[in-house]
């Protein structure tokens, strides 16, 4: 199970890459494996504001549909438009080309509630 050390994580199996005031988000290797083949990703609208814990994206696999929750409140700055034709990137490269969107972080203190790689690994191992 690939869990990069330089990312932060949520207990809902999302990863967050914090760079300056921006947070890139996606789903973890564990999540993509559990979902199976991803066939559709609903990305948010650029400019939309999201609350902490609100649904920011929906990921549909051959098996099910899953909500992706905002790990931090903010404004959607960028979305991965390549996912419209290539949703399988979530399976193939969950921490790279399979990124979902970038949020302009509204309240940086919320980032402190995220798990580090070690904490997330403990969560997955206990799952």
């Amino acid at each position: 199970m690939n869990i990069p050390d330089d990312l932060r994580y949520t207990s809902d199996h999302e990863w967050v890459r914090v760079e300056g005031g921006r947070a890139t988000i996606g789903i973890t290797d564990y999540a993509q494996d559990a979902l199976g083949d991803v066939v559709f990703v609903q990305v948010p609208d650029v400019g939309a504001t999201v609350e902490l814990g609100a649904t920011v994206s929906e990921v549909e696999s051959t098996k099910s549909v899953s909500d992706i929750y905002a790990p931090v409140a903010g404004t959607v700055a960028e979305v991965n438009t390549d996912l419209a034709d290539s949703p399988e990137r979530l399976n193939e490269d969950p921490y790279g080309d399979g990124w979902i969107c970038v949020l302009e972080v509204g309240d940086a203190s919320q980032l402190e509630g995220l798990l580090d790689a070690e904490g997330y690994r403990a969560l997955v191992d206990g799952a």
Partner: protein
Amino acid sequence: MPARTSPLDRAHRALGARMVAFGGWDMPLAYPAGTLAEHRACRAGAVAFDVSHLGTVRLRGPGARDRLQRAFTNDLDKIGPGRAQYTHLLDEADASVLDDLIVWWAEEDRFDVMPNASNTGRVLDALGPGAQDVTAERAVLALQGPHARRRLHPISAEAAAVGRFRVAVVKWRDAECLVAGTGYTGEDGVEVAVPADRAQELWSAVLDGGFEPAGLGARDTLRLEAALPLHGHELGPGITPLQAGLGWVVSWSKGPFRGREPLAAERERGVARRLRALAVPGRRPPREGQAVLVDGEPVGTVTSGNFSPVLGHGIALALLVTEVGEGTEVIVDARGTELAARVVPTPFVGASEPAAVG
């Protein structure tokens, strides 16, 4: 109650299969190749499914045929020994489909009835004393795809030659198997019931022979493209064969059968809803339970929906009021997002041309 496992359980785990609970069994959902790759392999090549979770209920003796005629909707007089038939078991009270199943007429006085995993008990009850649950004695492999017969031929030429909806007893390396020209993918192929203690040997032989293993995930997307119903979704409580568009499964000329009266009453008054096929232009599929609307008014509910790997867009089956026919534009409420869909003919995807054998 612990989940039942197939005689091939260890083989699946050794292949790295992701397992899933289904109908009281623990069965492969997908192998490492994944559902989409397994799906495409079945449409273009040959795949092997372990479908040991299907039940096998055996009925023998001179009274067996008559008992089946009274229990199920279809007419065994249309076929004979060495043939298979799709049929329904109905609820006596309201003609709901309690199970959809295939009868393998193996020999003159021997029938192997193949219910859905979780409905085996209902079929045993309906058939009464003498019906024997032999599910644990065998494994069942579904060998499907346009190249299935060609790849099976070197393993068992006899099995590869069993025609569509034919049934034959076939000896494979001295193991007595029952082979039927049936499946659930919309492709050509056969299903092989092999004694449980020989299942591993046959499974290895078919994988060595070029069949790709495929799991329940692909089985579901394949059957949906073929617009084949799945019990618990398109068939079940409150859903009759007529609503499901499966009137051909019901014989009105053969005499009494369970559920005949309520079904005849429905035929008389006309069905209130019909199973229809929906296609959406985009990748996002309608999903089970989502409401279908016309002009803002609810007209029915999606029973199954998924992405079609062959067509590259979302497809679904839905129970809709009868006024909503083919060609109608509808809206599916997909968790608050409106998906524009069209009622289309079935199947979504037809069978591939089978490869020549030998």
